[in-house]
């Protein structure tokens, strides 16, 4: 295989081996443990402790909720938006530019902007809006924390989904569509029988790529809730174990679990959507 594959193997194997190695060791850097002094072997203790923590299952659940919700939102809204943008209109180029813009924004920046300037319950613009309509401003990040995270992340990924789906729709054979229009097929059935099947492959790609990035969402949570209010994902829990608690062994065991979860999701994806890629 080519150098890229070998490089990637190296990149995969070195940290993976290191993670596996640390996961069986007691490695508390702040207690003075270091590689030079040798690390104590503790068997599967880190593994049982990581799963035994009361935060473990909630964090897996949170991860799946965030990934699932963002996928559903971006795909559905993406299809609808793509359908809309496919219609003839004035200034389509500019609208496209407006819609794709969030994709370019750094996750840290979007987290900061949403948290402070939009979701702040006193000075945020959403609070102003709520008050304007005489409503009590919603305390987004504490009362609707998970929904807020999903909203921020969806905002970042909706452009991606929309534009892929739009390109796919535009490649649809217009003669085919026109023919069905002539036949008097109602819009809904046209969508169901012609457009949606055509989008299958594009939707697959959207799901696959987004899942990869969504499983490791971090900055948006770190900046907004710092893992409080039930927004702790598995990635965030590992971060807490490694960097906040400075327990590298425990965090590494968590890393191994995350790899397992990622692979379960990957196998799941391959089974369900992988076939679509071959068409």
């Amino acid at each position, binding site marked *: 295989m080519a150098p890229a594959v070998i490089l990637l193997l190296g990149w995969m194997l070195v940290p993976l081996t290191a993670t596996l190695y640390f996961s069986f060791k007691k490695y508390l*850097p702040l207690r003075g443990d270091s590689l030079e002094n040798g690390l104590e072997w503790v068997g599967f203790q880190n593994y049982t402790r990581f799963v035994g923590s009361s935060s473990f299952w909630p964090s897996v659940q949170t991860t799946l909720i965030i990934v699932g919700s963002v996928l559903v939102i971006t795909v559905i809204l993406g299809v609808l938006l793509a359908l809309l943008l496919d219609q003839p209109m004035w200034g389509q180029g500019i609208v496209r530019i407006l819609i794709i813009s969030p994709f370019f924004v750094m996750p840290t920046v979007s987290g900061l902007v949403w948290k402070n300037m939009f979701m702040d319950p*006193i000075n945020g613009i959403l609070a102003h809006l709520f008050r304007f309509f005489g409503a009590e401003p919603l305390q987004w*990040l*504490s009362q609707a924390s998970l929904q807020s995270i999903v909203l921020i992340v969806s905002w970042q990924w909706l452009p991606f989904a929309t534009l892929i789906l739009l390109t796919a729709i535009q490649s649809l054979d217009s003669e085919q569509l026109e023919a069905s229009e002539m036949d008097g097929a109602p819009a809904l059935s046209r969508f169901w029988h012609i457009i949606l099947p055509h989008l299958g492959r594009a939707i697959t790609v959207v799901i696959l790529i987004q899942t990869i990035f969504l499983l490791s969402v971090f900055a948006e949570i770190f900046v907004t*809730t*710092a893992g*409080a209010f039930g927004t702790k994902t598995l990635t965030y829990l590992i971060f807490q174990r490694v960097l906040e608690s*400075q327990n590298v062994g425990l965090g590494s065991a968590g890393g191994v679990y995350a790899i397992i979860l990622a692979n379960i999701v990957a196998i799941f994806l391959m089974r369900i959507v992988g076939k679509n890629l071959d068409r």
Partner: protein
Amino acid sequence: MNFKQALTAVGVASLMATSAAHADNLVIATVNNGDMIRMQGYTDDFTAKTGHTVEWVTLEENVLRQRVTTDITTKGGAFDIMTIGMYETPIWGKNGWLVPLDDLSADYNVDDILPAMSGGLSYEGTLYAAPFYGESSMIMFRTDLMEAAGMEMPEAPTWDFIAKAAAAMTDRDNEINGICLRGKAGWGEGGAFITAMSNSFGARWFDEDWNAQFDTEEWANTLNFFNDMMSASGPAGFATNGFNENLSLFQQGKCGMWIDATVAASFVTNPKDSTVADSVGFALAPDTGMGKRSNWLWAWALGIPAGTQKEAAAKQFIEWATGTGYIEMVAEKEGWANVPPGARTSLYENENYKDVPFAKMTLDSILSADPNDSTVKPSPYVGVQFAAIPEFAGIATEVSQEFSAAYAGQQTVAEALEKAQALTNDAMEAAGYR
């Protein structure tokens, strides 16, 4: 080049020639607090005096902490000076990761550092980091609102008084909240506040055998009191408010009282940023008559990682930044209210500084906090709003997340305490204490 610059250049050249020292480039990691940012503006003065140049890495507090901890535990050597606090210094000093600051020059006058500060920044009597500024916490309140409420703030109020005053000052229609306090998750945010507060309610984190104490009545009292008062008189969304959010609210005139870091006093009394600058009063942090007040003790300090090649230059920088000369320079250019407070005894003996409205209360607050004896019942740890053990930051962050969830109404106070108890004991077991 104008005359002044030329003079400086000549001065630098001669200084470099006489000391025969080569110029180093120091990389300094620091936190994005106002006083630190002000110091960055004066870097040229240091370079002019010593010939060494400085590169700043300014990071938000939590990011900074991760970044420097990773570097020090791996002996990465990415920084020549690190800005650390009272929590890290004794732990790192014990591990031998910091250069002992036991040979600073006579001019620097180490003995001038407030004993509370040098005590918290030492391990076994050796100073490992020099305080750039020190702080305790105190009450900042709106004198006009207090008067309108028909009440008078005592110099050393109780929590009951505070709750009453907060309710009296609250005016929801005009967006005035009686009291603003930290509810944000994180051990250095809401965690620090509630821990300091719990001291005054007779609570402690651990008993003498390192058993978590969240199942005690004292903790239930602390948390219930806090939650009830904040729900009644606090700002909306207080569960996500930290230092900066509250400072911003207070400056906008949306808080009647605010109990927080003493350094905030200079920000809320600065007419440039604060709309309420001329009506701020100060008082000691409240108590419940059990013998401990609810104020903390903290210092942001500069330490040198062991193994740096630039130890001499780094020490020069520390002497420059934390010495009396720097204080005088800032006082001359920006006024006495803006000098870094809380680090040196001489500052509080200075006649000019006595005119600063919050000077006395800051010093009194600092002096009334004792890291070695912070709880009513005996405890095995050092620290007022933290326990200086390596595991604390991780545990306290998770505990404070449970508390914040209770503030936001996602669980009851009892549930939060139960979870806190379990996860603390769990982590302490993992670390081998129990």
